[in-house]
């Protein structure tokens, strides 16, 4: 029934379709990209895209300031973005939701400590915290993922904890305890199924955030290694040649926008279909 409702939701289907499309592009990047993303062709620098005058069919979206194929770089950068989105949000989800369930269910000292930790995290603007972490960790794909996990676990923890507090009061949870369910079984069999819709929704929205953060870090030069294609990096490069070739700037921006709105659309559709209360999950 629920699955049927998900299939009938236009938002879920459009969002999911776009996400799958981007994921397939990322997975089959070597087959789809016409060139190697790092291959420099110094005789063909800043070639305009195919549809404007002077464009070449060999470089459908033109080339950048080092003569690298923009289309190929966009495709490979989708790989970077999707890897970060999936792994980082999984990591943040696991840490955040485990802590949320433990804190919400047991309360006590641990709950207090985690609550204060969330306060400290909340006083840091996310951009600043991730940048500082990147300074300590150094650049690289794994470091970007780690930084996002370390910054964003609080999003899950904060929202899910209050949900756990509500669910914990329900009669069926008390009934399960009276039936002799242990704590582990009560949390995993009775509470988790009730918080799962919110968790899935948050996860989808977190992927959108992870894509943006990865782009931001690459944009300021503190993201993935320079030999790895990333949309933020393409934007930073193209910004210097904004007058010569504006497409180089606009295309990666469009890629970020499409990916982020796909995840947001999916998250919004899931929220409506799964009837999750709108907690403070915007951004």
């Amino acid at each position, binding site marked *: 029934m629920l699955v049927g409702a998900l299939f009938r939701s236009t938002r879920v289907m459009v969002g999911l379709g776009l996400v799958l499309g981007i994921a397939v592009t990322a997975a089959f990047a070597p087959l789809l990209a016409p060139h190697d993303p790092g291959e420099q062709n110094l005789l063909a620098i800043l070639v305009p895209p195919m549809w404007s005058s002077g464009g070449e069919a060999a470089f459908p979206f033109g080339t950048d300031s080092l003569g690298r194929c923009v289309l190929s770089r966009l495709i490979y950068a989708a790989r970077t973005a999707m890897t970060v989105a999936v792994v980082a949000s999984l990591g943040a989800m696991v840490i955040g939701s485990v802590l949320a369930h433990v804190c919400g269910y047991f309360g006590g000292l641990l709950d207090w400590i985690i609550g204060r930790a969330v306060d400290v995290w909340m*006083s840091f603007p996310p951009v600043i915290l991730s940048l500082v972490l990147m300074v300590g960790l150094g650049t690289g794909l794994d470091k970007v993922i780690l930084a996002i996990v370390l910054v964003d676990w609080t999003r899950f923890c904060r929202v899910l904890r209050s949900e756990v507090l509500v669910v914990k009061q329900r009669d069926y949870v008390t009934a399960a305890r009276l039936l002799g369910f242990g704590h582990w079984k009560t949390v995993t069999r009775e509470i988790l199924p009730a918080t799962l819709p919110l968790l899935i929704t948050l996860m989808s929205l977190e992927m959108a955030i992870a894509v943006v953060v990865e782009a931001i870090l690459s944009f300021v030069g*503190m993201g993935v290694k320079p030999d790895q294609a990333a949309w933020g990096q393409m934007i930073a490069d193209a910004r210097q040649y904004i007058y010569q070739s504006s497409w180089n700037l606009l295309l990666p921006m469009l890629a970020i926008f499409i990916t982020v709105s796909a995840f947001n659309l999916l998250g919004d559709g899931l929220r409506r279909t799964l009837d999750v209360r709108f907690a403070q999950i915007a951004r």
Partner: protein
Amino acid sequence: MLVTVLKLIGRRLVAAVPVLLVVSALLFCVLRVLPVDPAAMSLPPSASIAEVEAKRREMGLDRPLAVQYLIWLRDAVHGEFGQSIHYRRDVGSLVAQTLPATLELAIIAMLIAAALGVGGGLLLFRLRGTPLEAAGDLGSMLLLSIPEFLWGLILLFVFGVAIQLLPFTGRLSPGFVRPGITGFLLLDTLLIARPDMFYDALEHMVLPALALGLAFSPALMRVLRSSLLDVYHEDYIEQARLRGISENRILVRHALKNAALPTLTLAGVQFGILFGGTLLVEIIYSYPGLGNLMVDAVHNADLPIIQAVGLTYCVVVLLINTGVDSLYLVLNPRLRVH
């Protein structure tokens, strides 16, 4: 009421002290992991190993991490944040010089975000039950998908490059001498009565402030709309309608007051994030504020600056949260009974 607000502010400031201590300790630890030797960096490359060692001892780098932190904390309490490794200047004065620029940008951006958020929220609410409702909802969701740095680039491209309407670098056109009274340029230019300069500074402010405002308004719009929808289920709205009060008056005078509270709660969080977002917008528009100072320091591994600027961001966020909470108290009479 003033007493209640002051009490809240006092309580918040006391609660902020441990948070700031933890934040500064965290910053300190994260940054000490770096394989950078501040002693070697603050000496000329020709310095001998013995000289570097002497400098290390002088800077206290041979002591345990906890002792180093306490030394730093002692100096920080006295307003001493050390010397910048790269600029060879006092970090405190560098921060003091750039903070007003960022604050000015952030305040104007918050005003824009609040205005767009309220206007957009009312518009979205007005569209309820019309064929345009779905379009408005989808539109606001797509707007939510454009982060501040994309807005910065979009506006830069459209108004700076494509139709060249507005300036997009710095705070002032070359040729103007910056008056250094408060550091808040819009205020300073008014104080010295230079309308031409004020107008120039305002022109430079439009794009960065708009980029931030546009990025942070959709969330406010959506929350205001949904709280208005909730409020309209209440009896007092129906009662007002029965009294013959016009729909517009009900919306503005009756419903908006109650619907504003959840929006304000979200605004507190949003404005804290917005303040961090100034960093990206500053880089895009080469705006000489904290963000550019921070990113330069990151590239130069200038630890004293990163530390002080990171802490400054936190202090401002805590102040913003306190400010929004006080406003909440002023607007919500139910919290005032004690």
